[in-house]
């Protein structure tokens, strides 16, 4: 296990958002956290990413310290006053050669000098994914990376994510509310309950990450969760 999550309790806004949530992540494994929106998935990613340390419990990394974590937030969170290339170059540690290769993989080769305001939401999302991969992460945290994209754009996003993945293997936590998306991208699916969030069901996806697109993912999801 590269990561061991044990959140006994996390309160936010006067209510308990997470309670008794436990799971592990193996090196190179992709785990999808699936639950209805507002069930505390984003909060959980903030705890794991170290952005919020006020909770009861433990987040334990193999080796004692957090490895390089690439985060893809729900919104692209690109700096509007920096070009796509500059946005990717600002992360630590920067790696210009890797950034260039990533932009090509993610279909943004000719958009490097564009400001984010000139990009569509789908392109901005892909730029955010490129940024997360650019630090050569050991773990990727993806928070609904394709939400509010039209189906075609989302499918394209998943395809380039898979391509980037096969170019640089890393473990990942994918937060989504879409079981078909989870089944098409993950090795293992954890179903979360609502308020407070806790793992209610764990399913290993057969031949995980070998799905050909969302339709195949939907078929597998239907078989796994009748």
């Amino acid at each position: 296990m590269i990561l061991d999550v044990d959140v006994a309790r996390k309160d936010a806004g006067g209510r308990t958002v997470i309670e008794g949530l436990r799971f592990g992540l193996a090196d190179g494994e992709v785990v999808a956290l699936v639950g209805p929106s507002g069930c505390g998935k984003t909060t959980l990613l903030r705890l794991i990413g170290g952005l919020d340390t006020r909770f009861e419990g433990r987040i334990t990394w193999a080796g004692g310290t957090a490895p390089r974590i690439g985060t893809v937030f729900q919104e692209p969170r690109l700096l509007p006053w920096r070009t796509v290339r500059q946005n990717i170059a600002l992360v630590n540690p920067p790696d210009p050669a890797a950034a260039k290769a990533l932009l090509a993989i993610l279909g943004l080769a000719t958009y490097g000098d564009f400001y984010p305001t000139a990009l569509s939401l789908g392109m901005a999302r892909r730029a955010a994914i490129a940024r997360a991969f650019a630090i050569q992460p050991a773990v990727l945290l993806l928070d609904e990376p394709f939400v509010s994209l039209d189906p075609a754009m989302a499918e394209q996003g998943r395809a380039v994510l898979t391509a980037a993945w096969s170019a640089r293997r890393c473990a990942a936590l994918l937060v989504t509310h879409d079981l078909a998306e989870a089944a098409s991208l993950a090795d293992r699916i954890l179903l979360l309950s609502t308020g407070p969030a806790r793992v209610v069901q764990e399913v290993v996806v057969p031949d995980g990450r070998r799905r050909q697109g969302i339709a195949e993912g939907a078929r597998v999801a239907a078989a796994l969760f009748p």
Partner: protein
Amino acid sequence: MLALLLAWEAGARIIGSRLFPPATAVAAALWQDALHGPLLHNLGVTLLRVAAAFTVAMLLGSLLGVAMGRSAALNRALDSLLTGLLNLPALVGIVLIYVWFGLSETTAIAAVALNKLPSTAVTVREGARALDQGLIDMARSFRMGRGATLRHVVLPQLYPYLFGAARSGLALIWKIVLVAELLGRSDGVGFQIQVLFQLFDVTGILAYTLAFILVVQAIEWGLLQPLERRANVWR
């Protein structure tokens, strides 16, 4: 602008009073004083005081504004003081500082800066409150470091507020520096206008005013607007 100048010229010639000189006479006086009189010296001295007071007010005001915008406790502690300073008449502030700390270059600059500082703090505080926490979290998760985060993430968000404060600040400081000079300095545009006032030399006063307006416009066009354009390229 041209129509205004023509109306002034014609009106002054029709009235023909020493207290309302025509534009050409004012321009001639401006030219003469610039060549042979103390105008350039006085303008330069005033300009330096403006620059010093502006720098102090912008720096301290911005720091105070960011601190108050980011810390609710500090904001509660200092808010009434800030409101008080904001409503303190410029003249009272200047007189008190002169009386308490003496007539000197430093007190003059401090008195002027004190007049601008609160409004800078209030403007920048708005900016600090409006900072996008999502982008700051992003910087943190990508381990950007304090310096890089300030430079690439925080300051660009504050630029519109800083430019707003700078522009209104320059306009305010120009005016208040003259009062500080009139009350406690023996050179500068404010001092000279007092001398000209005692002589009832309206042509001289208007010549100084004109020179002054030209310099302020030059700073606006030559410095502030290009800087702002540069900061806004991405828009």
